[in-house]
């Protein structure tokens, strides 16, 4: 029954052949997408990190048609239905984890940060709930394979800019079209809670970075465009936001009683959030922001996920009382205040865990550096977060908070076969992701950068040795 090694070798050989045919150093992702796998795939004798029922040393994972069919302890015997054609893979000494999830990203919406033409994050108006991330998600962005190589297989993509930037989408990082890649198109409505510029960094999170940088204070223009009285501007923005939700609620009520109600795309876009089917992702960092934002979502009975949460520790009771989960946007961050503990952001996850707050960890790094996601969790672990919990913060808990916990985040029968085979714990820098499957399709772990490295190593192999 065990004949896996040959399969692996063959696969690598095929990929190598593809690489030699591919044009070099292109701006696009030229790798083939994962091929459908008709066979059952069985990973045997692995260290299986289920993320929901502990670690199974010497366990077995079986998936087929993109779905996990069995996750077994060493004692349990796998029985495949008769006649099943299977790919058996020996994973001795290898670890299996659910795919890592980048919970707050602009992956696929940005190709090159400074080139406006390649940036699809920010619709013109300050309120654009009609914008939905999956629509602009570029399946061939070069950043996608780069991200995937380090085991990050899923990303929740957020539009940004203005107080109501649009709706976030959970995307899996393999597929021929963005339709293929959409796990949950409408994950929730993004609300960038209007706030004063941060006192220390002076960067309001929701400030529009408009015009050429370089002029002092240029970035301090609030979304409402009024930098003379920022407090009044913030108040105005909050009122405007509330008005939009009030109007949308009214529209849905009218629509329910009168089918001839004229269309309103924005109101329609807020429907799922207003009905409580989807959360609002509220971006807020500062204590005052968090308190006022949560009080607003409470007043409108909106399901809330707090995104950012820098001062979460200062309002623990509130978060616990409302059971608001938090997406921490980055552990590798400076303290916001001069007097802050140098490890404020490093230690925050451990402190939230100690207080029983639900949270997951994101990078807070837009699009190009999602591959460092496990290292944000690793730093949290070095500063007191249980390592198992740190892994959960980039898998299980992220999936649950994003509303895809039924499909992703753990190795549980019935969920999607989105998983990694590694030679160690992803929190360890030197751990190598050896193979990965997204929705049961094995993905190519090479990327533009690995290929450029190969290409230029060839150059130096051609040169005469240095004196």
């Amino acid at each position, binding site marked *: 029954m065990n004949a896996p090694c040959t399969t692996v070798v063959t696969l690598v050989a095929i990929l190598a052949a593809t690489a030699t045919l591919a044009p070099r*150093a292109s701006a696009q992702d030229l790798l083939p997408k994962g091929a459908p796998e008709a066979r059952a795939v069985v990973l045997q004798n692995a260290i299986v990190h289920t993320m929901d029922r502990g670690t199974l040393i010497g366990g077995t994972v079986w998936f087929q048609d993109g779905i996990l069919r069995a996750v077994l302890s060493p004692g349990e015997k796998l029985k495949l239905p008769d006649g099943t054609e299977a790919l058996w893979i020996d994973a001795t000494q290898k670890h299996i984890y659910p795919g890592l999830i980048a919970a707050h990203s602009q992956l696929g919406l*940005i*190709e*090159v*940060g*400074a*080139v*406006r033409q390649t*940036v699809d994050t920010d619709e013109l108006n300050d309120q654009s709930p009609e914008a939905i991330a999956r629509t602009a998600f570029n399946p061939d962005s*070069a*950043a996608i394979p780069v991200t995937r190589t380090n085991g990050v297989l899923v990303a929740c993509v957020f539009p940004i800019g203005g107080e109501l930037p649009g709706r976030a989408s959970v995307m899996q990082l393999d597929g021929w079209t963005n339709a293929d890649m959409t796990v949950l198109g409408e994950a929730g409505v993004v609300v960038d809670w209007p706030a004063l510029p941060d*006192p*220390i*960094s*002076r*960067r309001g999170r929701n400030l529009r970075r408009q*015009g*050429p*940088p*370089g*002029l*002092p*204070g*240029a*970035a*301090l223009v609030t979304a409402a465009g009024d930098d003379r009285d920022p407090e009044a501007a913030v108040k105005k923005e909050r009122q405007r936001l509330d008005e939009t939700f009030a109007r949308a609620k009214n529209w849905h009520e009218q629509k329910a009683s009168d089918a001839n109600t004229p269309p309103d795309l924005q109101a329609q876009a807020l429907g799922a959030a207003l009905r409580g089917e989807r959360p609002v992702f509220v971006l807020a960092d*500062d*204590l*005052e922001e968090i308190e006022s934002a949560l009080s607003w979502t409470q007043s409108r009975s909106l399901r809330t996920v707090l995104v950012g949460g820098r001062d979460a520790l200062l309002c623990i009771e509130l978060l616990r009382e409302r059971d608001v989960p938090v997406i921490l946007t980055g552990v*590798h*961050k*400076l*303290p916001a*205040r*001069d*007097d802050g*503990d*140098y*490890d404020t952001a490093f230690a925050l996850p451990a402190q939230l865990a100690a207080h029983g707050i639900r949270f997951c960890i994101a990078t807070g790094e837009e*699009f*190009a*550096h999602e*591959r460092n996601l496990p*290292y944000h969790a690793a*730093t949290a672990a*070095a500063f007191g977060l249980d390592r198992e919990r740190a892994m959960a913060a980039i898998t299980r808990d992220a999936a649950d908070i994003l509303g895809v916990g039924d499909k992703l985040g753990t190795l549980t029968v019935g969920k999607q076969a989105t998983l990694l085979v590694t030679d160690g714990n992803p*929190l*360890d*820098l*030197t751990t190598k992701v050896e193979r990965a499957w997204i929705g049961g399709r094995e993905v190519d772990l090479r990327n533009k*950068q*690995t290929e*450029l*490295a190969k290409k*230029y*190593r060839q*150059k*130096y192999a051609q*040169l005469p040795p*240095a004196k």
Partner: protein
Amino acid sequence: MSSARALFASTLVVSLALSQGPPSNGPAAADLRYHALRGAAVVVKPGQRIENATLVIKDGRVVSCSAGAAPPDGARVHDCTGLTIYPGLIEPFLAIDVPAPDADAPNVHWHPSVLSQRDPLAADGASKQDRELLRSLGFCAAAIAPIGGNFKGTGAVVLLDEPTTGHKAQVVRAESYHLCSLSMRFGSHPSSEMGAISLVRQVLADANWFASSEAVLTADRSASGQRPSANAALAMLSSRRTLPLMFDCDDELQILRAARIAAEFDRPMVAIGSGMEFRRAQAIALAKVPVIVPVHFPEAPDVATIGKQQRVSLRQLQTWEQAPTNLRRLLDEGVKVALTTARLQDKKDFRTNLADALAFDIDRDQALAALTTTPAEILGCAQDLGTLENGRIANLVVVDGDLFDPKARIDAVFVAGNRHEIEAKKAKGLDGTWTLTVQLDPKVEVALAIDNGAIKATIGDRNPKVTNAAVTNERVEFAITDEALGTGATWVRARTSTDASLTGTAHAATGTYAAAAVRSKPAGDEQKGGKSDKDAPEEPTETGEKKDDAADRPVIAPLATPLGGYGVLAQPPARDVVLQNATLWTSGEQGTIPLGALWVKAGRIAYAGPREGLPPDASKAETIDATGKHITPGVIDCHSHTGISRGVNEGGEAVTAEVRVQDVVDPDDVNWYRQLAGGVTAVNQLHGSANAIGGQSNTVKLRWGSSHPDAMWFHGSVPGIKFALGENPRGANGGGNGRYPSTRMGVEALIRDRFLVAQDYARRVASYEALPPRDRARTLPPRRDLELEAIAEILAGKRRVHCHSYRQDEIFMLCAMAKEFGFRIGTFQHVLEGYKVAEAIREQAIGASAFSDWWGYKFEVYDAIPDNGAILREVGVCVSFNSDSNEHARRLNTEAGKAVKYGGVPPAEALKFVTINPAIQLGIDAQVGSLERGKDADFAIWSDDPLSYAAVCESTWVDGAERFSLARDRELRATIKIDRERLLRKALAAGGKKGKTAKNDERDAYWAAEDLTASYCCRDCEGVR
């Protein structure tokens, strides 16, 4: 320079004699300034007081002052019994508007901020309002000076007298100082503080050149060489060398920076302070700079809500609390201090604020000196001003009480013998409460309350209507309507008989009756004497406040440096210590030693190796068991913008090689502390990348808590300079504003041009210097050009280029140019496509300093790969990984770890990417970068494999002294909590005046933000959209 002005400067003319004036229009009044002030206590000068003195002044000067002397015949005698006479106060800095010279005039400096020739006497002088205001505070003379620019013009000492016909400003000294500043101009040059300093430096160098050229030409009109063209600003600076440079400083660090430049050019210097000098009083004392100190204090921060409290830093709170101690701390350190009313929003607050400052047990003689003799000395007017010794200008302040009691009435000032009344002794008015008795039958008693001409009357429980009230100091008249007095109005007229009684008549409808009133005084009022009744009600509150003030007043205890939560009270000592049993990552030939011993002594490494080899001498040292720990050399960050005050880019010009980051080290940046917490011990502070040829870089050691910023300099490091290629110097991502270059072709051309010009410059300087002394005396010296000098140093191999670069073509271009011009590049920075041209870098540069895995933020980094470092190393390039970010700088150990992950660099070699390799690149590898005997004891102790994310830095040492430890950090956190709590309560109690916070810290915060929002300063803003 007009000859009239030169005359003023050389002879210190006091233009008082009327004969100099125009013919009088009609009979001329005699100038009878002959006064004898009798009976007062005269403070002749600080420390000399004569009771019951007779002070005689004549023709505007003091003639004599002696106890009990009879006034001379002919003098006008003033009875000053009970009063105190002080020398008139001197305001050393009164800014006035003086128009800038016409920019097209043939002799102006090319730079619009260089206006040294500007003459404050050419304008209107001190305004009438300022004169009156200053006199009311006791000032009799002021140095007026123009505002605007870096070299603003001269200061002139004038009397605060009212001009008489034909004598507008009465000048004591026409030229007292050169007013300068390190100010910037947004969107122009200089746009950074380091740019401003460089401009000041070049101008002073030009002034020297101007003077030496002048000397040659004086000896030989036909001397050969380049002659300076007429330049009024340079002429002024070169001919008035003994006048101090008066630097108007925005903060305490600027004082130290200005002092360094003044010393560099051997110029005397005085600083106009910001009021925040107490934060670095010791360093200012060591710099021996006299400081003109304002008594402006920040208002209490607004801490009304928890949210607002979160926005206030401990440093702000401390600054607010400690600001009034500024004067005391400067005096304690022995700084020469003069006081100024400048920087006060309202100069009227001067005496009250001064009293707050003096409340810290400041000797009154010292305070008086700071207002009289010291400013006189600083302004070069000590022969004329500052004391009441014979022959001095008769400037005096006559005070009813102690000059330093803000409540004491200033009776008058005499300016050059002219008396100006300030506040006459108040006549005892009729204000107050009276009981008026009208002799009707029966008698009617009316209670009267007289307040500033208004009268309120009470009869029984009624308040009858009072009309037609007329009150003078002697009499009162009014009409009152009340049933007790009969129908209709009753006219009351009364006049004083004694201070406390009035007598008169009441004309009622029924006839005229006698009326008399007596004061109904509150008990104890009599004792207070001298105070008017109007003041009386305020008194209890004032005393109350005073008491609170005293309780709230901070104790004069040493302050941490820098001020704020993480400062230190004293530099930690270098220890004699052995760290036992740790894994030593030496980054040297010994590689990694599993069970090592590290012996640190006198700031150096005395031994690093296997524990068995520890020399016996080490047994005397303290031993620390470091079993299970990892020790690495201190991390070195080859690309940092931490701690650069006010602007990382001098973007005002395309080439700014003259700009020096070392001029603007900011030792207060809390990021130094945070980076120590990440094991960092040295960094390369780089200019930004807006210019093809940027400013000079600076290598520092993280000597956190240094009292002088220059103490952070890494002595012995090889000088560096920033170059930048590609999108940033092109201005491709914004900020281009029409400046050359706008293509990579132009970048190449610009650098080539500067190299050629610098070569030519160096040749001219060398040939001049090679002249025999006789010929040299007849040859005009070449102008010293600080920009070309720095570029010539590159070509001579004395200054290393650290070149911001991304794409392979631009890297290749600079390699080729370096080869052509015959020098070796220091490092390529970022160098994200370095892997494509590694062999060229290997040949022409000392090394490459890259990000581990950063990419995607702009188009020129689209081909960046994380194997870059590994490939460069494989080809033989010395590679470092840097941060370019205050945040990443704390995690360079794991950035190095990425070289293991991407490209398989062996761990010990990967660690070198942040230890010995950057040391080699910066030319500090003889001192630091590895754990080897004889090197500086700069190292970090980690809880785990330093290349792994599990590692926490537990302790960091610089020069053998522990500058960070987790244990100490915990203590500091506890202290910060307590201090914040105390100060927040205090600020709350102070009422949290709305909207205003410590002025300087607002500015600090602004600049911190500016650094973040400006383009091309660090990785955090690279490619910001």
